[in-house]
């Protein structure tokens, strides 16, 4: 698969950055505005899926590989668990041990933004990896048989 037409590629070049930026905003401001780690992570995965769909599997195989997705998935889960375990500093599992700060500020609510970041990375990378496995690599592995089986 060589990706889509020039129009799609150019529009993707313009738009994809904004989509990923919006996903990062939703993740980082999850404790202030509606959204949070899960929704922002899915937006990140959607932006990456748009890039892969537009630029084809070569891009996916060289830059946004499956291994990167798996690594980020595990790292996000570990970050969330780390926040949970560090709660022992304040007493028990999942204690909000950091200072709470001013309500409504970006750096507030203690460990909630860090946990949001972990969940966002985890969900984004996990769903993007599933997307790669489902949509992109399906044709690559089946090779000519899929192209043969496709109806005109």
């Amino acid at each position, binding site marked *: 698969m060589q990706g889509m037409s020039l129009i799609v590629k150019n529009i993707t070049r313009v738009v994809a950055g904004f989509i990923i930026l919006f996903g990062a905003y939703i993740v980082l401001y999850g*404790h202030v505005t509606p959204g949070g780690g899960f*929704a922002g992570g899915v937006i990140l995965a959607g932006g990456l899926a748009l890039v892969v769909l537009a630029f084809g599997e070569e891009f996916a195989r060289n830059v946004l590989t499956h291994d990167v997705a798996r690594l980020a998935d595990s790292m996000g889960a570990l970050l969330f668990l780390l926040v949970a375990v560090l709660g022992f500093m304040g007493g028990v599992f999942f204690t909000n041990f950091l200072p709470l700060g001013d309500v409504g500020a970006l750096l507030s609510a203690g460990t909630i933004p860090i946990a949001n970041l972990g969940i966002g990375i985890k969900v984004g990378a996990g769903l993007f990896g599933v997307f790669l496995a489902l949509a992109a690599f399906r044709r690559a*592995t089946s090779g000519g048989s899929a192209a043969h089986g496709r109806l005109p």
Partner: protein
Amino acid sequence: MDPILILLLAMLGFMLIGSLIAIETRDLLSSVICVGAVGFGTSLVFLLLGAPDLAITQVVVEILVLVVLVRVVITRRDETHATSRSTLPVGVVLLALGVMAAVVFGALAGGPEEGALRLRPFGDPLMSAEVPAAQLAPAGRPDLAPAGTCSASVGGAFLEQGLAQSEASRGTGAANYVMGVLLDYRAYDTLGEATVIFVAVIGAYAVLRKVGRSRHAGNESDR
């Protein structure tokens, strides 16, 4: 009648029609698009009920699922088989539609008197009762109770205590109460959800992997 309620019922009807078309249509692509329409209707319902977190998540998940499904469907464009339709499923569907219409009619037309078939207002028994706040204290710690009265629901307790940073009750400091509940009060639940997603992703990788599969196939062909 409440305009929100009219909009809700219109969305429910739209979603019902969309699901019926998704089940009944022959074309797989049309079916997938109808499923997407039902998902967007769900997100609008969430938005009308005042849950923007859920609405954002629903929209975004729906878009991603729709992209994957459309891609899979376009890749393999086989259409569903034409099945001979017996009268029993149609009858069951019509019966269910009739029961649903009766329930909706009763919900809308029933008077406020006792015993009438009537839907309660949204959140009526759970979120509206007022109790002394001393009942909200954890067992054995009456000193943690907030002052005065507040609503009996857990939501009311969170609204009372969520932002407070007094010595008695430590809030979360999160302006978004939903995140405060998800990642502070109920962080164990969120850890379980994250585990579920992690296991689901691992399962998808295991089912869709190509390394073990191809080597196994190669061994088979060598023999």
